[in-house]
């Protein structure tokens, strides 16, 4: 990547429509995230190596991220706060350095 590619530009939106859309999506995301946190102790051991998608405060599980996303989208097409998560096969300490 060249130096030109590395430059990031930050801006804050004040457009009312965009603000409303972003806040609504963030609220739906927050509900799904809270649901996952509340059920993580049950979900993680059961679905290691699987891709999960949380939508409508429901769990969707598949072998690939595309499948998990498709399942969640089919069930909750209006929930743009859905998100993917991969549960690693092994429960080990993780060190990320990139």
């Amino acid at each position: 990547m060249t130096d030109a590619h590395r430059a990031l530009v930050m801006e804050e939106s004040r457009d009312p429509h965009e603000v409303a859309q972003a806040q609504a999506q963030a609220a739906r995301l927050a509900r799904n995230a809270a649901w996952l946190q509340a059920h993580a102790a049950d979900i993680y051991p059961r679905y290691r190596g699987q891709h999960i998608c949380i939508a409508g405060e429901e769990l969707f599980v598949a072998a690939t991220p595309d499948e998990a996303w498709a399942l969640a989208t089919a069930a909750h097409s209006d929930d743009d706060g859905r998100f993917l998560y991969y549960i690693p096969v092994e429960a080990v300490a993780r060190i990320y350095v990139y």
Partner: protein
Amino acid sequence: MRPVLWGQIRTGTGGWVAVPFLVDTGADRTVFSAGVLGLLHLAPLATSERLGGLGGIVSSVVVDTQVRFPQVDGGPVTVRGFYAAVTVREALDMSVLGRDITGLFTVIVDQPGQVVCLLGQRHRYRIESF
């Protein structure tokens, strides 16, 4: 509790996909996971990049997009630019928020208080003793 910030990434079709980001103060760059890359439907740039970590060196692609974070009081903050993404699922289980973005903010990771946030220009923190 892992330090996770919830953001959104702009897709190739003009929408926004919700994404959890692991706040990694040791990461030089923000990197998208392969699962997230698949959702974005973005054409990778012709260039590519090698990324180093505990697992060794991995190849990545580069995409031109936007990462957006909601604000408590105000409109979303969007960071436009070129981002790396791994293409192998096992390389990253979660997208990583690196210092290319976090360096624009004050980062708070308070595990006992369960607070993970980015402070911008309109916010400050104060350290007190009891």
